[in-house]
């Protein structure tokens, strides 16, 4: 005889009698807790009882309760015994019959087929189709955005300036602490590492040139753009993506409001506005970090800042700020595009957000390379 604990205060028991009519008798409460313990031993006992040509009686008349898990066990026992000599269920109460119903119906159910990917050729065609659609969407978006920005320039009063300033505050002003920290450490590290290399030659003073030019021309805008992509580009994609999932974007369209003009233009304008300001701020903080390090190397503040003003030209400043504007445009528009491309479900928003950040960083690096070559040939 086997016995297992069911719910507190209840037990489930079973015994097996061999002979001319083998019988497996179950009684008590066959609930999920009892099934946890009885699943393997009871099935082994049933298989031991069964033999070719012997029909086993499964006597469940003593069951006071049977839940869905209990029915799973009874059904598994039935199937095990049917494979050998057969089985006859005896004494099944209404509840047991009801619980067994879905298990028996499942034996007849043919699984429905979801659309599955076809062979290699069809998958290759699907991939080409997906790339084509993505390219089409991106080109359409660039066109719509260019038109909307052009319209904003011609009719500035139609721009949603309230939204633009709200986004600018979140993307710009509230980013100052993180930009300060990163820019300061960047300035410190840049100055420190180059000072170590230049000191043997007595050229510490030129560390100021190196820090200033690399920050203004390259590192300030680049670092700012990466922070903007991680902070705001991701937020734009998540916000618009959630709106897409909730059908708010469809609601805008059916109200006759163009989602690009309504949602994207304020964010892109805010991106274009805050990116150069953040880059300029990052440059200043980076210079200050460099100055602190140079103090440690015995270079006074005034000497350091004189050197910086001599090293920098207006073209360094403007080229850096121009790049920052382009990076701001890229980060904001990619974030919005990925938001608008969001599919259905919570996972789709996560994918859009990831894609917004990754695409923005790739574009930033690619455009930075293009600008490096362009400025070299233009003599900037």
């Amino acid at each position, binding site marked *: 005889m086997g016995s297992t604990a069911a719910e507190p205060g209840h037990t489930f028991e079973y015994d097996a009698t061999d002979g001319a009519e083998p019988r497996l008798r179950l009684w008590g409460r066959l609930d999920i807790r009892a099934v946890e313990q009885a699943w393997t031993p009871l099935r082994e006992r049933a298989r031991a009882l069964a033999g070719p040509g012997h029909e086993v009686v499964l006597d469940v008349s003593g069951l006071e309760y049977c839940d869905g898990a209990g029915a799973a066990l009874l059904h598994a026992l039935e199937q095990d015994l049917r494979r050998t000599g057969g089985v006859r269920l005896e004494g099944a109460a209404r509840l047991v019959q009801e619980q067994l119903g*879905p298990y028996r119906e499942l034996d007849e159910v043919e699984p429905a087929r979801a659309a599955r990917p076809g062979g290699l050729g069809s998958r290759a065609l699907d991939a080409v189709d997906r790339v084509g659609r993505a390219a089409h969407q991106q080109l359409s978006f660039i066109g719509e955005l260019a038109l909307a920005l052009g319209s904003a320039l011609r009719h500035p009063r139609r721009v949603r300036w309230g939204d633009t300033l709200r986004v600018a505050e979140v993307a710009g002003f509230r980013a100052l602490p993180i930009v300060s920290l990163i820019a300061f450490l960047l300035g410190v590290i840049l100055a420190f590492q180059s000072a170590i290399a230049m000191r043997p030659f007595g050229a510490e003073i030129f560390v100021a040139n190196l820090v200033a030019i690399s920050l203004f021309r390259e590192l300030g805008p680049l670092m700012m753009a990466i922070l903007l992509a991680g902070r705001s580009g991701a937020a734009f994609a998540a916000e618009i993506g959630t709106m897409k999932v909730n059908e708010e974007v469809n609601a805008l369209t059916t109200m006759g409001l163009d989602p690009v003009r309504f949602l994207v233009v304020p964010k892109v304008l805010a991106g274009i506005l805050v990116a150069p300001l953040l880059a300029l701020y990052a440059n200043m903080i980076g210079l200050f970090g460099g100055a602190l390090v140079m103090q440690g190397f015995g270079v006074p503040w005034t000497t350091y800042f004189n050197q910086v003003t001599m090293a920098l030209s207006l073209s360094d400043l403007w080229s850096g700020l121009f790049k920052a504007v382009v990076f701001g445009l890229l980060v904001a528009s990619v974030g919005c595009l990925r938001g608008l491309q969001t599919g259905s*479900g919570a996972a789709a928003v996560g994918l859009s957000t990831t894609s917004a950040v990754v695409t923005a960083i790739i574009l930033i690096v690619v455009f930075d390379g293009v600008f490096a070559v362009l400025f070299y040939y233009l003599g900037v």
Partner: protein
Amino acid sequence: MDAPEDAVIRVEGLTMGFDDFVLMRDLDFVVRRGEIFAILGGSGSGKSTLLKHMIGLYTPLAGQIRVAGVDITQAEGAAREAMLQRVGVMYQMGALFGSMTLLENVRLPLEVHTQLPREAMDAIARARLQLVGLGAFADFLPAQISGGMQKRAAIARAMALDPEVLFLDEPSAGLDPITSAGLDRLIRRLARSLDMTIVMVTHELNSIFAIADRVIMLDKESQSIVADGDPVALREHSQHPWVRHFLQAQPEQSDEGAA
């Protein structure tokens, strides 16, 4: 309050709201074993909030809610977890996990709360899906099936652990009449055949008259229960004109003549 012996849920002196805002005061009612119990009320009367209090998601401002003998407002740790295994909840939008197939959604509570072998968990999950008519769709993702099917799959998931009480938040909302009637039949089958207690929040009067054994009606103005009883009897004989008009689906302006 003297509760009947077969009470599965006992709500006593429940005051609910948020901070200083009180939504309902001193609610008292019981839900009996095997009953299909509906919570009705106008928009904003706190039906879904009451449901969320009954499953322990919200903490009441005052009062007690005993579910299967455990005070859900006080229960913590293992006691609370054990109690939560005895209830199943279907949320208004289904709340299926989009990255999992229907089978994986239904199997999840079994994986978390039981030591069953994988074969048994799969068998139970498939049978639960078959019970709600989705046996053939076990390997589909939620996004690949319709809204009505998603609701039925959510019921299957709520039933995975064979709960004593099944809470349904707006089961028929947004469904066509035929799908809605199918869902009603399923709910009645669960209560009658599997002896489950069903607590549901709904606006669908057809569903209520078709399947509910008892209904309570929440009134925003008086912050209390204004009716408790058999829905058909309340529709015909309630002393409260608003209750009659609500259940007869008549516009509220007609109250003026009656009042």
